[in-house]
């Protein structure tokens, strides 16, 4: 009887240690949906680029502006969905959405992400278009890797996959959109599904 108590003690300790450091309410479903948005976005982008075949896309052209708006739309939809579904999951698990662990998660996710974002904008400004796809993938991968310490382990593997994809993309600079499709689309759907089946149901 006494032994059972000690065993429960150890179980409690382990549970509290992970719950106090990791935000576990991250929704897997939001990963799947973010992947789908990315695929739709990429399909629209592809038709927009194909329509401009004969023209060179420059920073000033409307096509470029539309592409930026499209990318921004995909980002807003993805983040919005992730927030909405995570709040829902947190409520179900009785976890506060805005606690010490979720704050740490967001801060650590955003540091590499914002760095990569600024870096990409500076590259665009200076005309290095070819490196945008690999740079965004690599920095997004590092953001996931950094954030994974404070949430579900699967995010770590998503990050590593994105980094590897990004490095490969450097060698194939004309195919940026396809690497984005694999990285932001397919990878999110695959890892999102894994997380959904492991934790959400």
């Amino acid at each position, binding site marked *: 009887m006494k*032994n059972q108590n*000690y*065993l429960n*003690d*150890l179980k*409690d*300790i382990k549970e*509290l*240690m992970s*719950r*106090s*450091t990791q935000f576990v309410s991250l929704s897997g479903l939001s990963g799947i949906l973010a992947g789908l948005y990315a695929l739709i976005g990429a399909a629209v982008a592809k038709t927009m680029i194909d329509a401009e075949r004969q023209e060179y896309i420059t920073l000033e052209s409307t096509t470029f502006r539309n592409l930026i708006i499209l990318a921004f739309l995909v980002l807003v939809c993805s983040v919005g969905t992730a927030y909405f579904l995570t709040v829902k999951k947190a409520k179900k698990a009785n976890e*506060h959405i805005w*606690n*010490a662990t979720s704050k740490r998660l967001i801060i650590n996710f955003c540091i590499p992400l914002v760095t990569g974002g600024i870096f990409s904008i500076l590259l665009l400004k200076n005309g290095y278009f070819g490196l945008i796809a690999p740079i965004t993938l690599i920095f997004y991968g590092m953001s996931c890797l950094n954030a994974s310490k404070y949430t579900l382990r699967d995010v770590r593997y998503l990050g590593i996959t994105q980094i590897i994809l990004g490095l490969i993309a450097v060698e194939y600079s004309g195919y940026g959109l396809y690497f984005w499709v694999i990285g932001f689309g397919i990878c999110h759907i695959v890892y999102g599904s894994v997380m959904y089946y492991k934790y959400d149901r």
Partner: protein
Amino acid sequence: MKSIIQNINKTFDHRIRLGIMSILMVNEEADFNTLKELLGVTDGNLASHIKALENESYIRIEKQFIGKKPNTKYAATLEGKNAFRQHLEALEKLIHKT
């Protein structure tokens, strides 16, 4: 057998104290509300267990102000961490013995 029982620390022989120490082992610091939320206990209950751990100087209390609101943070002392580790080892040994 006797030596193992001696390592079981009486101060930690309570679910909430065990909980406070577990959280402070893996977090540099935690404030009162975070502890309360994680452990699911009342203010008074938590305060009394914090007091007990503080009396053994297993945890350290840092009072500060965020704007005008007082904010109290807790951190495990080196002494507390060592004591907790010994307690865990003792628990493990006890379980493996049988």
